[in-house]
């Protein structure tokens, strides 16, 4: 059984840098688990600790029910695909794939059969005599995968295996990797900083930041019910729109957040949790796809009791939709200053830094929309689509 059980895992590198803090996760047999987060969040450290390439001083890792803290990498029965594939440059594709079996001392005939089986599965049959330098990026990636699957290990560990491929090939390999994983049914831990890979490939996602696990769950759960502002903005492209605004009680059982001259009602089911914030600031979040140019009644009937009004700053035509940036009244919120800096377009563009007292939000309009920059738009908002976060802790209010 390829279950991986991580208990209280922590890592401090020599020099005092803490890379990982109290990680607890149970990865079921056959599960496709994704560790996702920005650079330096501890995801690769966690993966390397599972592989045995980093020592474990805090916590415990069990693979298949056996604690492996002091077990050498070669005896953990896991296979790893590295970011740069780490194919042995002096060996042919055949020898690269056969290497783990040679280490196990398998007979030549068995090695041949298993290498050919792996090559067939990955479409490498014609390339077995080539050296890695004669392969394309995608082919190298397949060979690395072949070297991993040929052993039939308890778990696959993949460290950003698609990050060196171009966008088109990455999409193709995403599908291939998912198919191979499903076919073999081997427990897989996959590290990436790309939230699209996380959303599309994993059966479960663990979002990490600064060495701490932020949230884990199915892609749908993490997307629809982010546990904090970081997860809300990290998952999704673009991430969730966040605005800081006052929450006011307009009457008994009527809480509203004030965005400029608009008073958007809070969903009834959250009133209990939101009551203690009445009269103070809250952070309101809404996914870009919930802000569209479709008529309000077409989406949520008359329940659209709120609207976001603002000035269009940028319109990006993406073919299947128009991504519209709108400047609305309110205070922008930085869920993660580092992340905000990466996402923020260069200064000088209108959308770079909103004017004081305003914040930029993204909306997804239909491709036929005729909206143009500097136009004022009035976007209906369904209260049920709103997420609320505590401005102090960043945690979701539920």
């Amino acid at each position, binding site marked *: 059984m390829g279950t991986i059980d991580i208990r209280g895992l922590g890592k401090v590198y020599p020099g005092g840098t803490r890379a990982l803090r109290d990680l607890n996760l149970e990865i079921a047999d056959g599960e496709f688990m994704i560790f996702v987060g920005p650079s330096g969040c501890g995801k690769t450290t966690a993966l390397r600790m599972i592989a045995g390439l980093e020592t474990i001083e805090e916590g415990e890792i069990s693979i298949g029910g056996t604690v492996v803290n002091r077990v050498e990498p*070669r005896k953990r029965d*896991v*296979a790893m695909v590295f970011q740069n594939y*780490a194919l042995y*440059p002096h060996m042919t594709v055949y020898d690269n794939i056969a*290497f783990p079996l040679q280490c196990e001392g398998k007979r030549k005939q068995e090695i041949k059969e298993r290498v050919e089986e792996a090559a067939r599965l990955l479409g490498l049959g014609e390339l077995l005599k080539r050296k890695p*330098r004669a392969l394309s990026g995608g082919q190298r990636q397949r060979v690395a995968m072949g*070297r991993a699957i040929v*052993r039939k290990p308890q778990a696959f560990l993949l460290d950003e295996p698609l990050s060196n491929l171009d966008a088109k090939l990455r999409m193709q390999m995403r599908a291939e990797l998912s198919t191979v994983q499903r076919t073999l049914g081997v427990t897989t831990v996959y590290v990436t900083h790309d939230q699209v890979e996380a959303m599309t490939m994993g059966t479960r996602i663990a979002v990490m930041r600064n060495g701490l696990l932020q949230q884990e769950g199915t892609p749908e759960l993490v997307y629809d019910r982010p546990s904090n502002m970081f997860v809300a903005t990290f998952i999704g492209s673009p991430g969730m729109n966040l605005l800081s605004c006052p929450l006011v009680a307009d009457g008994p059982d009527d809480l509203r957040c004030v965005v400029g001259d608009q008073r958007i009602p809070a969903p009834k089911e959250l009133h209990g949790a939101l009551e203690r914030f009445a009269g103070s600031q809250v952070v309101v979040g809404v996914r870009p796809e919930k802000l569209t140019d479709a008529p309000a009644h077409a989406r949520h009937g008359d329940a659209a009791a709120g609207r976001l009004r603002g000035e269009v700053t940028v319109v990006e035509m993406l073919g299947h939709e128009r991504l519209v940036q709108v400047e609305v009244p309110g205070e922008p919120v930085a869920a993660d200053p580092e992340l905000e800096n990466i996402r923020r377009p260069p200064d000088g563009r209108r959308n770079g830094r909103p004017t004081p007292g305003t914040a930029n939000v993204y909306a997804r309009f239909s491709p036929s929309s005729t909206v143009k920059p500097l136009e004022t738009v009035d976007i209906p908002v369904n209260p049920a689509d709103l997420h609320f976060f505590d401005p102090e802790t960043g945690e979701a209010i539920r």
Partner: protein
Amino acid sequence: MGAFRYTSRSFVREVVMILAALLFAMPLYFLIAISLKTDQQLTLEPMKPPLADPEWGNYADAWSSGGTTGGMGRAFLNTLIITVGSVVCLVLVSSLTAYVIARRTSRLSNGLYVLFVVGFIMPATLGLVPIYVVMRGAGLLATYHGIIILHTAGILPFAVFLYVGFIRALPTEYEEAAQVDGAGMLRTFFKVVIPLLRPITTTVAMLSGLIVWNDFFLALIFMSGSSIGTLPIALNSFVNENYTQWNLVFAGATIAILPMLCVFVVAQRQFVRGLAGGIRG
């Protein structure tokens, strides 16, 4: 079509390069030219190329008449045994040592590295007398294994220095991949690391081979009184107090440099890559 393929700048550069190449080729020319002259030609027309009637017999004479026991042929074999033995020992010991120094971050390995660098800087002649005494005590004088150990130890700091620099620039991912793939330390080293070190191994082997092949001083001191004469010793025997046959000396020298020249021509690409560092793969 018809355009002059040089700019004025590249033309001047190419002429300078050709002149430099000719300058470097001059000693080789004289070496071969003189080795093909008779005594008389050498005295009367020392600069004239011996195109009309080259004296190939000089090579046969030099081969058979080297001053040591067994002539140059025997000296050639002795030098080959000592050079190959020293290079093999040196590559094995220095690569293993350097691997541990480069991959371990402990103070001990850093201290060891400093020790090797100091050994690299210090002139070997300083330790000549104590080394002689130790080798005499251990019965290693005038033996193949004695001189092989001496050469290996003497060049070790330099080889370790080269290997450490190369290994430190080598990504650790290959070794980590081998570990996860199920390889133990020895298999990882011999099956994965050693092949990755091929460029620097070529460099170390060529440089150390050249040093050992051409060594005169250590062979003279530590092999004296034995029948194990090396090529430089044999060449020296052509030089006589009263009369020196320079054509034979040059023919012998040509024979002596030929193997090293061939090795360099065959492995020059690896040699340069080893010095430049890096792995392509």
